[in-house]
């Protein structure tokens, strides 16, 4: 996975998050450089999902700053970020291959990339089936295959390993490793050790909302 | 006395005029009262919650 745009990193300064008037975390500062993997840990409600959504621009930033270093003037978060939340965004009535070809077309990726992306999670032989018949783990893999399809330097993953078996976790680990090797960055909320070298850990429980 | 009856009769339009005024008064009073009572209720809730927080702190 090559990064299309040179991005020297992501800098977060004194970020705060308020959800429905409740303070989730505050004064969060960190930096992610190309090739970095940042693992978010913390108990439920400590704001792992909220932080990822803020970074993706899907949640309001109450206070603080998120800076994309080295991004051009006309580059927005959408050009840099690939977000995989805990919902798979899979449409049951569509075929497996149709599901992915839609995202290819919508994100401006050539249709020839669809087959290899499915193969990354060994879904190639299921392409003709309606996605509705897939198991939870297979749906998850279909959702994650967008990572292999769409080329963005910064991945934001929210519990990507949920309902995956060991083989698929290994496949995800391989994909993430090659993304990091080519200068990409990953921020992921996950409890599973993916065996990635040089993973840094950000513990959100110390910034908790309990200190309101 | 006669002039008062005449006044209330309003040239035969009395029922319409007085009911329109009465409805307006009733509705406007009701609105003001409802708003005021809501304000009272919120004030009470705030002081209750603050008192509880105070008790916990001490």
């Amino acid at each position, binding site marked *: 996975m090559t990064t299309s745009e040179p991005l020297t990193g992501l800098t977060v300064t004194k970020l705060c998050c308020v959800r429905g008037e409740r303070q989730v975390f505050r004064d969060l500062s960190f930096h992610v450089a190309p090739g970095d993997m940042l693992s978010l840990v913390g108990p439920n409600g400590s704001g792992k999902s909220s932080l990822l959504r803020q970074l993706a621009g*899907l949640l309001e930033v109450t206070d603080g700053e998120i800076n994309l270093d080295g991004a051009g003037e006309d580059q927005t978060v959408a050009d840099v970020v690939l*977000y995989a939340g805990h919902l*798979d965004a899979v*449409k049951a*009535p569509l075929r497996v291959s149709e599901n992915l070809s*839609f995202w290819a*077309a*919508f*994100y401006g990726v050539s249709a020839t990339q669809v087959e290899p992306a499915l193969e990354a999670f060994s879904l190639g032989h299921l392409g003709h089936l309606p996605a509705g018949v897939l198991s939870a783990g297979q749906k998850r893999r279909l959702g994650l295959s967008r990572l292999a399809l769409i080329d963005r330097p910064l991945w934001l993953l929210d519990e990507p390993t949920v309902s995956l078996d060991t083989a698929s976790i290994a496949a995800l680990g391989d994909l993430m490793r090659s993304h990091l090797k080519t200068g990409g960055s990953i921020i992921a909320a996950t409890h599973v050790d993916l065996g990635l070298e040089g993973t840094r850990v950000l513990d959100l429980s110390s910034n908790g909302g309990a200190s309101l | 006395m006669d002039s008062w009856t005449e006044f209330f009769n309003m040239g035969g339009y009395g029922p319409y005029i007085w009911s329109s005024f009465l409805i307006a008064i009733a509705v406007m009073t009701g609105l003001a009262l409802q708003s005021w009572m809501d304000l009272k209720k919120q004030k009470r809730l705030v002081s209750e919650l603050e008192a509880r927080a105070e008790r916990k702190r001490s």
Partner: protein
Amino acid sequence: MNAFFALVQREVRLATRVGGGGGMAVFFFLIVLSIVPFGIGPDLNLLTRIAPGMLWVALLLSALLTLDRLFQADQEDGTLDLLVLAPQPLELTVLAKAVSHWLTTGLPLVIAAPILGLMLNLPLDGMLPLMGAMLIGSPALSLLGAVGAALSVGVRRGGLLISLLVLPFYVPVLIFGVSASRAALVAVPGDLGGQSLALLGAVSLASLVVGPVGGAAALRVAVK
């Protein structure tokens, strides 16, 4: 533009695979219209007089029926996040959604309208003006409806809310649409048909701006 057509294609495909897409709306249209004579009696002259109005009212209701899934379904399975994050402007995404809603609801109803017109004793020479007016006016229903659908994303019982929000905004479409449809039936002085058709077109064009802009603004808020 590729992204736009990809979304339209996907939406139409989804609509045809789940519950026959336009089929449900046409069925609803049919059933509402066949209830009317039970309410007002089988007097054919009376039915002729109210046919254009009834057809338009039924069109509004059928269009409303399918609006609540427009963004709600995508919000529930996480698709909406990815649509918002995509490089395509959100306004175009809303427009694509409205276009697909029209293709799967508005267009089938316009095609079915003459058949249902016959049931209400609408004379044959009134069919063409009716279809023309519906063809011009129905896109406005989908475009304005998209704003209502976007506003009620994530709201429980959102379908009911959409109707409350959107129906007042349908008033101009109904007025100009019915007027353009009945011009051929009732002799009116002046070229009223053409005038109301032009006004109907103007409303549709205005909705072409209001729909995507308002819908995108509402979606940005709804996702956050």
